[in-house]
């Protein structure tokens, strides 16, 4: 019996150590005198791999800063891990990064489910997360002290796009096709918000599952309802299937989509040219724009990541990292989590290649505006409306 007591104590002590590691007692610092470590997770492999580009983009911005000598003598090191778009894997890679590498802040991070899986862990370990590459209300309502959102809400986007269709295009018969999840329903809420305000209703609202490949009944329903404009909050494949199916039955409405399908080079290619004429929301300047900031990013991407296609997703990764780099610059030599939080919380009207960002200690949804683009010949981006605020946004009131 006596021999068992030390063994029992050892087991209890071991368990306590393992548990305390999970609670963040052993987290190494995310910076030293020579470097600041920032990181992103994303699907670098697997079916969602196209969105992995958004996790690789920040590395180019870090390289640009490092070329200028870094920030107050510290270089920025950007680390990427593959979560294969699997929330369980997101938890594993984030924990490994935080507890082994020592990360000061995370940037980007596509996948709502993956983000929600690690949000609380990051907060417990007081790690800043700037610019999740998706719009999730739970990230910012109520405000999370360490999480700062750049991405416009799909609800605001829906409202602005519906306003454009009704007032600029003069179309009153609006149909909505939405993915049957938070993403799709938020977009639908925005359209309803605007149409209610205009004392109108969508002529038809059709939910669709992300994996569906046959959408002929959906298209026939849109056609029979007389929808002259169709607003979509769907994934790229669903968008392509909708347009292809519409072509088979001679249905030609004005297609309007969420910013998630605004990579025109890709969409036009995979739809066999059918994407030309589609209108979408957008949360940054077009990647093929002549704006000097975009030209500078494009050149840097050619230099530091020549294997990457400089499309919407890759440039978005750079855009999501901009405010964090700006906060580092404002803080300078006396770097600490509290100092960077203070800099982020006091950011007012900061604008890089994305929308204007304003954060405060009580408001961590940074942007409220979108641009509107149209897909031109050969997948070229045509800017048809500059930054537009959702004047009905309830979260600002």
């Amino acid at each position, binding site marked *: 019996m006596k021999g068992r007591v030390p063994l029992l104590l050892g087991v209890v002590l071991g368990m306590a150590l393992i548990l305390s590691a999970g609670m963040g007692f052993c987290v190494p610092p995310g910076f030293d005198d020579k470097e600041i470590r920032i990181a992103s997770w994303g*699907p670098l*492999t*697997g*079916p*969602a*791999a*196209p969105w*992995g580009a958004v996790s690789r983009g920040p590395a180019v911005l870090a390289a640009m800063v490092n070329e200028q000598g870094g920030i107050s003598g510290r270089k920025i090191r950007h680390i990427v891990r593959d979560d294969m778009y699997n929330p369980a894997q997101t938890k594993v890679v984030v924990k490994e990064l935080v507890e082994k590498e020592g990360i000061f802040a995370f940037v980007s991070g596509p996948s709502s489910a993956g983000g929600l899986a690690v949000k609380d862990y990051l907060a417990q370990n007081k790690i800043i997360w700037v610019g999740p590459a998706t719009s999730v209300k739970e990230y910012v309502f109520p405000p999370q002290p360490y999480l700062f959102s750049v991405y416009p809400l799909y609800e605001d986007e829906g409202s602005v796009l519906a306003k454009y269709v009704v007032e600029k295009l003069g179309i009153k018969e609006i149909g909505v096709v939405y993915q*049957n999840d938070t993403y799709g329903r938020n977009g639908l809420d925005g359209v309803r918000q605007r149409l209610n305000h205009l004392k109108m209703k969508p002529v038809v609202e*059709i*939910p*669709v*599952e992300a*994996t*569906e*490949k*046959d*959408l*002929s*009944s*959906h298209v*026939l*329903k849109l*056609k*029979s309802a007389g929808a002259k404009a169709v607003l979509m909050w769907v994934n*790229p*494949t669903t968008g*392509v*299937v909708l347009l*292809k*199916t519409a*072509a*088979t*039955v*001679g249905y030609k409405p004005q297609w309007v989509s969420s910013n998630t399908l605004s990579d025109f080079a*890709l969409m036009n*290619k*995979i*739809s*066999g040219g059918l994407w030309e004429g589609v209108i979408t929301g957008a949360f940054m300047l077009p990647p093929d724009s002549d704006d000097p900031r975009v030209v500078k990013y494009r050149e840097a991407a050619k230099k530091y990541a020549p294997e990457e296609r400089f499309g919407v997703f890759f440039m978005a990764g750079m855009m999501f990292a901009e405010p964090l780099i700006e906060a580092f610059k404002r803080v300078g030599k006396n770097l600490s989590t509290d100092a960077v939080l203070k800099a982020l919380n006091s950011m007012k009207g900061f604008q890089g290649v994305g929308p204007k960002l304003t954060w405060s200690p009580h408001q961590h949804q940074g942007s409220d505006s979108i641009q509107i683009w149209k897909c031109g010949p050969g997948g070229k981006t045509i800017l048809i409306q500059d930054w537009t605020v959702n004047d009905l946004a309830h979260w600002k009131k």
Partner: protein
Amino acid sequence: MYGQLIIEGLSIGACYAVFGIAVVIIYKTSEVINFAQGEMAMISTFVAYHILNVYGWPFWYAFIGACVFAVLLGLFIEVCFLRPAKNPSVLGLIVITLGAEMLLMGLAGWKWGGEQKDFSLPFSFHKTHELMGGLVINDWSIAVFVMAAVLMIFLFVFFRYTKLGVAMRATQQNEHAARIMGIKVERVFSFAWGFSSLIGALAGMFFAARSTLDPAYMMEPFLRAFAAAVLGGLMSIPGVVIGGGILGLLENFFGFYWPAWKPIVAFLVIVLVLCIRPSGLFARHYEKKV
């Protein structure tokens, strides 16, 4: 509108049916459900895409290349993955096909990336023909109907009147007796896998032309085709074709009136059929005697 729903439902149903036939051919010989069927078709379609876009060869060369590849892939999986299994149970073989599915998907992601790609057939969905009263049918649908009809007739003749077809049926009914009667069972299995892979590749190319090509694009059509096969009877070729048609129509009418319910129709069909008539609507049930 009902007429158009029927045309669209039957055409996608015919595509499910063709793919379902691929599932049935393997089941008919070995009673194994091949869960790698979708990914085998996906890889073969990627080969056609590769020949078209990397080598720049004409479509029919790419088509023939993909068909040859599909046959070899089927043979390879049977010879290298299934045959080495020692004293395999049916469940064990099914688990091996699940492993092959993951392997093929990973291989496609590594070789061609996860980004969606455009894959077109000469039978375009753009080109439509007016039948009557505003009803239209496109070239893609016509080609699918023709393919399903030709395959059904060919397979009916093959299984009833050819030695190999009869040997395949005999192998399924009693592998041991088939061996005693001099049937080279291993060859029958290899043929079934190669042939099934070829038919799956044909359906895979049609599915890709209707949506996009990526490593995961055949997962959902496989489930639909499996539902069609279960509905028609996993042993019956005409049953699968009729099952595909019924499923396509059910899905389209559900999709039109209750879109939110459409995705579950196929699964509801599987559950109902397995509960009420496990051998399917058209399959004859054989009792094995000791």
